């Protein structure tokens, strides 16, 4: 009977020992302290939790012992984990779990504490256990507020609540697969023309045995190809080159890492895509609020140009962030002098509006014909150019005031049709040589090219038509204004003139 009990006792002790040896270890990370800002960490609370778990019989690695590994792994944010780090944790500490925690509030007066903890399985990255505690002073208000809780009592209650019923799941990991953590991927350009060389640099960290193959899988026009990655500047960086396919489109790039022999494992991780683009951007130049005549843009002193990539061509479809434009350039040529007067070139996106001041400061330009050339290059290097002819008009046209000399009566006509820019306002007064106003003409409103007006001069009173002069205020369509003083009236024979006296005129005269 005693022997039997001794046997039971022996086996119990044996199993307890075995259980303790194989019992999962927990690595406790420093907690993220959100109460103190973005990058604050707390050691005090996780150390205390580690201590309490140890006292309960759990095998625990406290935060301070994990720090060297995290530094070695260049992990500055202790709350963000990945499979490579988890594998290193397993390898270095033989631990099956990582306890992560975040502190939302840690206030002493009045006491308020908010903590969330979670236990992560190193082999799967799954959360196997977790608890959140959020205590504030009013949670402990007793009837009639006879007793208030202090910070130290509250934190003890937090520990108790967090760790009550803490059951570390028993788990035995036989093997944990090797893994890779991609830290950075750099392409020489995401947008390329067909046949150009794609250059891809990948910075990555391996955990586990050395892989037998590291490369990238790229898709060609017809098939998939494996391009091996070669060591680059340091042990973490690898580089691969290949030619971009001929057909336009977007092409995925997948990292392929293979472990042979023991593992027979291949990991394929999508790392990004690049675009093959052979279509120039469809550029359109919009001239804001400008008048147009005979294909030319009329400008008084300010020209507002709005460049836009339009349409649904392929380049437009390839746009990533921004408008897909890598560089733009504006050139302004004087057609009269046949010279380049401005060239500006900038990298990056198109400007919303380009304002060209023809007048003012250093940029005053003489009136005349100008040519604007606007050129853009997309991210793949395809370019397109748009030209616009601009007529700079800084002065309104001078009208010709002509009087047609008749036998008995004189008719007057004001001709302005030889000028390019229509007028919108004319106020004209004709004076004789004594300075007496003998006629007045007013016209404004819709743009007009010509004023034909019959004015009868009394031959008896006006002896010499050649002594007539006029004062005028004129305004053209571009709001250019001109004041004319004592300008001479041109006199022509009535037979030369376009105006013939009307039937009514002759009847009145008769």
């Amino acid at each position, binding site marked *: 009977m005693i022997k039997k009990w001794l046997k039971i006792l022996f086996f119990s002790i044996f199993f307890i020992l075995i259980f303790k040896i194989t019992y999962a270890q927990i690595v406790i990370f420093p907690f*993220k302290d*959100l*109460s103190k*800002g*973005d990058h604050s960490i707390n050691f005090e609370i996780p150390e205390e939790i580690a201590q309490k778990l140890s006292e309960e019989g759990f095998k625990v690695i406290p935060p301070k012992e994990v720090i060297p590994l995290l530094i070695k792994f260049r992990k500055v944010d202790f*709350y*963000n*984990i*990945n*499979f490579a780090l*988890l594998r290193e944790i397993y390898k270095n500490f033989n631990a099956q779990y990582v306890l*992560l925690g*975040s502190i*939302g*509030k840690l206030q002493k007066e009045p006491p*308020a504490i*908010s903590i*969330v*903890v*979670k236990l*992560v399985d190193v082999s*799967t*990255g*799954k*959360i*196997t*256990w*977790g*608890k*959140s*505690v*959020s*205590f*504030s002073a*009013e*949670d402990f*208000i007793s009837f009639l507020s006879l007793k208030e809780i202090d910070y130290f009592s509250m934190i003890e209650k937090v520990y108790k609540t967090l760790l009550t019923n803490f059951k570390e799941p028993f788990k035995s990991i036989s093997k944990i697969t090797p893994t890779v*953590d*991609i*830290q*950075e*991927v750099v392409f020489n350009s995401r947008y390329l023309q067909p046949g150009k060389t794609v250059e891809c640099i990948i910075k990555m960290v391996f955990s586990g045995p050395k892989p037998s193959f590291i490369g990238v899988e790229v898709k060609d026009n017809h098939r998939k190809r494996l391009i091996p990655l070669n060591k680059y500047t340091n042990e973490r960086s690898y580089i691969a080159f290949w030619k971009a396919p001929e057909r336009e489109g977007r092409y995925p790039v997948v990292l392929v890492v293979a472990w042979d022999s023991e593992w027979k494992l291949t990991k394929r*991780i*999508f*790392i*990004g895509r690049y675009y093959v683009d052979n279509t120039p951007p469809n550029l359109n130049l919009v001239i804001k609020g400008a008048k147009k005549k005979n294909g030319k843009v009329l400008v008084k002193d300010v020209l507002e140009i709005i460049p836009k990539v339009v349409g649904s061509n392929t380049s437009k479809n390839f746009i990533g*962030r921004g408008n897909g434009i890598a560089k733009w350039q504006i050139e302004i040529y004087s057609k009269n002098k046949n010279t380049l007067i401005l060239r500006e070139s900038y990298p990056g996106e198109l400007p919303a509006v380009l304002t060209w001041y023809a007048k003012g400061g250093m940029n005053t330009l003489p009136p005349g014909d100008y040519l604007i050339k606007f050129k853009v290059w997309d991210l793949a290097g395809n370019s397109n150019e748009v030209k616009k002819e601009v007529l700079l008009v800084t002065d309104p046209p001078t009208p010709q005031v002509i009087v047609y000399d008749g036998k008995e009566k004189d008719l007057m006509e004001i001709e302005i049709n030889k000028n390019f820019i229509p007028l919108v306002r004319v106020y004209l007064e004709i004076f004789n040589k004594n300075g007496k106003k003998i006629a007045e003409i007013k016209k404004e409103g819709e743009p007009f090219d010509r004023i034909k007006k019959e004015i009868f001069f009394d031959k008896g009173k006006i002896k010499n038509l050649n002594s007539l002069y006029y004062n005028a205020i004129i305004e053209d369509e571009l709001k250019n204004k001109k004041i004319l003083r004592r300008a001479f009236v041109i006199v022509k024979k009535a037979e030369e003139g376009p105006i013939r006296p009307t039937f009514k005129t002759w009847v009145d005269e008769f």
Partner: protein
Amino acid sequence: MNSKIIFRIFLILAIFFLSSCFSKKISVVINSSNNNFCEGTVFTFINNTKKFGIEFLIRDILTVELSKNGYILKDPSIVKSFFTPEERIHYFENPEIALSPELTKRLGSILGLKWIIGGKILKAEKIGDYVRIELLIWVKETKNGRLIWYSYYKRDSDSYRTILHFGRTSDLYSLVDKMVKKDIIKDLKKVLICEKKS
């Protein structure tokens, strides 16, 4: 006569106390035919308020509570480690549009996730002893990368009050904790139907 007055007072008090239990909520289920919504992850909420840290706390409390309710959750930082560097930048710059259907589907196929939870904190304020929070929460399924559920929650100090002043919350984090544990989890369980759940 006295009993009638007592009854009336009791009725008024009962209505008063019960009214503090109701809160505003708008919830929309778009489509949820899948009954195998066991595995997923919770992403950090977008925080439109000045209360830093509350977005991480909501994520963690939700993660822990869903895990307690039998769901299998992958740590969000592990999920995000499968973003390409470009996607990481895009997500950091504009989390509202960065989680495209294509990316959601890819994460689902790599990690075996069925759903991804995210949301936006619209208001979080504390004025004296009064606290208030407003948030939007959504669920995307990874099969098609579509949004399958979203809901709006608005809670304040009195939302979880019991009798007189007992249970009145004056701490924002306690309010978040109560809101997640008492309401959000309950609603999520109706959407994330997991038949294998233990």
